[in-house]
């Protein structure tokens, strides 16, 4: 595809961290995000996710809920207490549409959530909205 308007370059400096224990899901997410010119990091559980978040300071974290070692909720709770990770946007990937899940995550502060199985284009839209909101807030 030709990129007359230079739109493709816009995501160049945006870092996204994908935290999910399902390698297949991580792979498909990474491929699609990279195609959209995002810089992608991955982690397979909450503990690893926290380490990557501190190292790479991503703009957005796509966070799964049920994972071994440390689940999404626990990771989010620790993340929100760390000053160096301040301002990272989080989108929860939840397999259960149960309201309890979302309420718990919301109490810690998440930017959005999406219920599995989701449409990738829908997820990409949500990421765009979150990034726009961040820009607006920065101004």
């Amino acid at each position, binding site marked *: 595809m030709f990129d007359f308007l230079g739109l493709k370059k816009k995501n160049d400096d945006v870092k996204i961290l994908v935290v999910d224990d399902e390698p297949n899901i991580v792979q*498909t997410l990474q491929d699609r995000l990279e195609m959209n010119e995002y810089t992608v990091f991955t982690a397979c559980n909450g503990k690893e996710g926290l380490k990557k978040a501190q190292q790479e300071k991503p703009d957005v974290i796509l966070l799964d809920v049920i994972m071994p070692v440390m689940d999404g909720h626990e990771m989010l709770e620790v993340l929100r207490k760390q000053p160096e990770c301040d301002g990272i946007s989080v989108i929860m990937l939840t397999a259960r549409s149960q*309201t309890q899940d979302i*309420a718990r995550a919301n*109490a810690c*502060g998440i930017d959005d959530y999406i219920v599995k199985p989701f449409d990738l284009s829908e997820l990409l839209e949500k990421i765009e909205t979150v990034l726009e909101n961040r820009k607006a807030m920065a101004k």
Partner: protein
Amino acid sequence: MIKITDLIRNAQSHQQSDCNLIVDADLSVQEALDWMDKEGCNSIGIDTEDCENFIVLSRQELLERLLAELDNAQENLMRIDEQLQCSVNEELELIGSSPEEPAPRSDRTLELAFANMTEGVIILDGAGAVQKANPPAKILLGLSEKDDCRTVTTVMDDLGIRELILSDRTERTCKSGQFRIRAAHQKVLQITWTQMVDGDRQLLGNVLTLHDITDRLAADRAKTEFIAAISHELRTPLTSLQNSVSNILAGVTGKVSSKTRCYLHTMKSDCRRFADLINDLLDMAKLEAGSLPINRCVMNIVTMVGDVINDFADQAKKRQVELLCEIDRHVSPVYADPKRIRQVLSNLVSNAVKFTSPGGRVCIRSYDAGDDVVTVVEDTGVGISLDLQKQIFSKFYQISRQAGPGYNGSGLGLAICDGIVAVHGGSIWVQSNEGKGSKFYFSLPKTNPFIVLRKHLGALAKRSGRKASRFGLFIINFDVPGELKERLKKTVGSLVGEMLTEINPFVNGTEDIAIRTEDSEIILVASEKQKGYIKTLIEKIQKITQNNLRKKYGNAPILPMLGVAVYPTDSHDMVELEKMARHEIRQMA
């Protein structure tokens, strides 16, 4: 009544009566004595059937004979009693217990049945006091078998059982009812009560049966958890499958040939169907366990019909089916969960479009009917035979199997519709002529949320009064200042909807309720579970509101307005309590 004729057996007859009072043998002894007093004579001549002979008795003789007759009768009675006693004892020995108080056999049998049945039974007298309680009832209430009726009454009052029956009865002219309570040792009891009314319509009291449903509830919960877990396991691979297909279609792997694209689209749409099937299974499991979250608010079906028609416009066009609505703009609002009602309507419209052949018509109508709002989806499709109409709302029943290939679905759609409508207090039914089309109706009660709230608060205060437990009345209001109001109306509406979803996890048990009373307002009633709970809840709700506002409007000038009043600290009166919470909001604004 003893008659003279009873006393003249063995009496000597005379040829002629020498007394001046002759009476008929049929006369009662009392009448004869009265007569003798009146006439002032000491003896009577008794006219027997044999006209020639008379029997003459003096007053003395008459009385003696009367006494003898009474003695005789008494002796007879005693003999009968003895015989009865013997046979009862024999019977009881057979059963294996000896009688403390001799009682008629049928009563005794009833008593034994009452004591030995597995269900807990309590009998209340007309004044509402415990008259009898069988051992299982006492044990279910956390007492021992030996505790007396007074102790049972006290425990029942602590649990608020008598008041629940009383409030049930005063509100409606109900003669029976059912409710659940949490009793000692974390047991959940289901109590069914029925009035005992005598032949002359006098209330004798109430009979209560107690069932321990703790295990049943636990099993239901386990089943729901199992299905939730299974659906998670199914969704995970489905997600990666769907993502892969989506990536290939988006060009992650390079150019895709048109033939491959065609296959990929099939895969994509079948992934969608698979996901829908999992959702249906989960919904059905939740409906059966009674754990499907229902977020009620005041909603108008009219606007929803428009949305659903938009959703199906493409599909209808593709199938060359005309899709339209005839809506009365003045249809009353209903108090229901918009997401769930939309699910019902979508399902019915989807079926109608699916089973109508090209050139046909699907029409949605909504109208007021008494206390209900009725919505009907009418099609000119294949129709349903009378036999099938009876089974169509049952689980896994698929009309498509009869309809032939090409029609498919989970077979749960209509069963879910039925469940959702029932949870809302409505009903669903069908009218159809085979080959001519079908009409699917569902009704929802028109309900004023304030009536629901007041009723709930009233019942809570009554129960709370005894246990002296506290509860908080929270009013969360997003009313925005004047000129912004119109502009933000829509977004505030969806904000409040999302808020309600987030607040619902805090709504535990039967004591709590969260309802949307108007577009921009939520009222939450939450009881204090442990000390300081209401205080933490206020903080939590403030946090949730602020998060949502930030998410939606950034730093727009809208204040989350929260008013809280606590029972019984702030007031004992429910109307006063609501006023106080509203006053707090006004002060913030």
